[in-house]
C-alpha cells in the first residue's frame, strides 16, 4: 500500500513524515511528494497544513494541477484522505484568516477565528486538550472519548452540517476538532504530536 503525504511547501511537515514512517514501519510505503501521478496512484493521501489558511491554499495553487488531482482523488475516486490542522480547515468553502480565501469546498462550512471572549482565552489554543467523540469514526477505533490530543491553532472549522463532526473539544466554546464524511477525514489537533494515542489514530487511518 502507498500512502502519500502531500508536500506543497505548507511549512514544517517533518513531524508528520516521522510519525507516519514510525507507524508504517516497512509494511506500508510512505511517499512525500507533490508529484501528481504519484498522488493519483496512491491508496491514501495525507494533507498536512501549517501557517495560515491563505498561505496553504496559495501553496496548493502554486503547484499546477494539484487541486484538480486532489479533487479527483477525494471526490471522484473517493479514496481515503486525511487532513491535519489547516489541511482539515481547507476542506471548507471559505476561510477568513488574513483575507477571505476560497477553500476546497469538500465539506460545506467556514473557517473563522476562535472567539476568545474578549481576551478571556489565550490564542493560539496551544497544548493538550480532551476530545469528545460524538461519532463513531473509523480513525477513532480504540480511542476513548476524553483522550488528550495536542492542539495548536487560532482558527476553527465550522461545518454547516453537524453530522460530519466526529469529535469536539472545549476551548472558549465547543470547537469541532475532527470530521468524517465518507472517505474524508480530518483532525484539527496534531495526531503526529499526540504521543501514543496520536500514533494510534495514524495507524487507524493507514489500516482503513
Amino acid at each position: 500500500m502507498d500512502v502519500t503525504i502531500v508536500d506543497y511547501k505548507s511549512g514544517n511537515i517533518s513531524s508528520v513524515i516521522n510519525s507516519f514512517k514510525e507507524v508504517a514501519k516497512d509494511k506500508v510505503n510512505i511517499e512525500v511528494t507533490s508529484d501528481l501521478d504519484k498522488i493519483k496512484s496512491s491508496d491514501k493521501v495525507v494533507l498536512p497544513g501549517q501557517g495560515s489558511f491563505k498561505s496553504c491554499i496559495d501553496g496548493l495553487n502554486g503547484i499546477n494541477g494539484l487541486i484538480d488531482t486532489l479533487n479527483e482523488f477525494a471526490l471522484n475516486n473517493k479514496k481515503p484522505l486525511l487532513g491535519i490542522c489547516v489541511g482539515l480547515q481547507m476542506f471548507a468553502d471559505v476561510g477568513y484568516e488574513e483575507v477571505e480565501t476560497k477553500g476546497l469546498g469538500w465539506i460545506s462550512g467556514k473557517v473563522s477565528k476562535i472567539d476568545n471572549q474578549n481576551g478571556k482565552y489565550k490564542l493560539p489554543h496551544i497544548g493538550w486538550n480532551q476530545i469528545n467523540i460524538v461519532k463513531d469514526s473509523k480513525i477513532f477505533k480504540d480511542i476513548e472519548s476524553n483522550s488528550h490530543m495536542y492542539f495548536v491553532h487560532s482558527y476553527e472549522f465550522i461545518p454547516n452540517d453537524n453530522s460530519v463532526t466526529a469529535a469536539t473539544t472545549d476551548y472558549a466554546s465547543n470547537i469541532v476538532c475532527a470530521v468524517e464524511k465518507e472517505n474524508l477525514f480530518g483532525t484539527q489537533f496534531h495526531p503526529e504530536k499526540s504521543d501514543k494515542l496520536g500514533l494510534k489514530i495514524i495507524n487507524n487511518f493507514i489500516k482503513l
Partner: protein
Amino acid sequence: MLKNRIIPCLDVKNGRVVKGINFVDLKDAGDPVEQAKIYSDGGADEICFLDITASNENRDTIYEVVEKTSKKCFVPLTVGGGVRSIDDINKLLNCGADKVSINTAAVQNSKVVEDSSRKFGSQCIVVAIDAKRKNDGWEIFTHGGRNPTGINALEFASKMEKCGAGELLVTSMDKDGTQSGYDIELMQKISSMVNIPVIASGGVGTLDHLVDGIKSGASAVLAASIFHYGTYSVNEAKQYLASKNIPVRI
C-alpha cells in the same frame, strides 16, 4: 479542558547533555536523544532543548540531535539557543523541531520574529525573554543573559506579541539556578498583559514552585534541574499538580 503543560528542558552543548539525569539504566547519560525519550515516555507535554554550544564549528551538532530525537519522540519539540536567522529556523524545523525559540535575534531585530511567524506560522515561533529586576521593573538581557539592553521586559513582551510570536518563554535571571521558585510577579505581569500563552522558567526547586507558576497565570511551566538530577520525575510532578487541583494531562 485545556491542560497546563509541564516542559522539561535539556541543556545541550556540542551535541551532549550538560546536566544529565542520574538514571542507572541509562546507557549513555550524555545522549540528549535518550533523555528526551525518557521524558516523553514519562508524560512530558513537550520537550525543550537549549543549545548552549559556544563555538561556531560545533553549531551543527544540534541539527543531528533534533533529527534523531524527532524520530523517537512524538510530542512537541522546542529548540532554542543561537537561533539568528530565518535560515536557522528553517533548518531546525526541517530537522524535526516543532517550535523554535528566539532570544538575542528577536531583541536585535524584531523583523526576524515578524518574518518567521509569517513564513512558518506563529505556532512555531517562541520568543525567549531573559529578564532581570531593575528598579521597579525588569530589564531584558541577551546572549544567554550576559548583555544588558536597557529594554523594559513588559514593553518588549507586548511588542513581541504584536510581531506575531506564538508564545513567550519568560526566564527570570534573578531566580534561574537558585531553586527558590519562579519570579511570580514577573509571570503575573506578563501573563495578564499578553493574550498569547506564557511559559514560566527559571528557579524551580520544588513541586510547589510548579504549582505557583501555573497559579501566576502561565500556561506552561518549564524546569531543568529538578528533572535533570532525578529529584522528581515528570510523572511525579504531574501527579502533584493534579493533587493541587491543577488540570494536567495524566
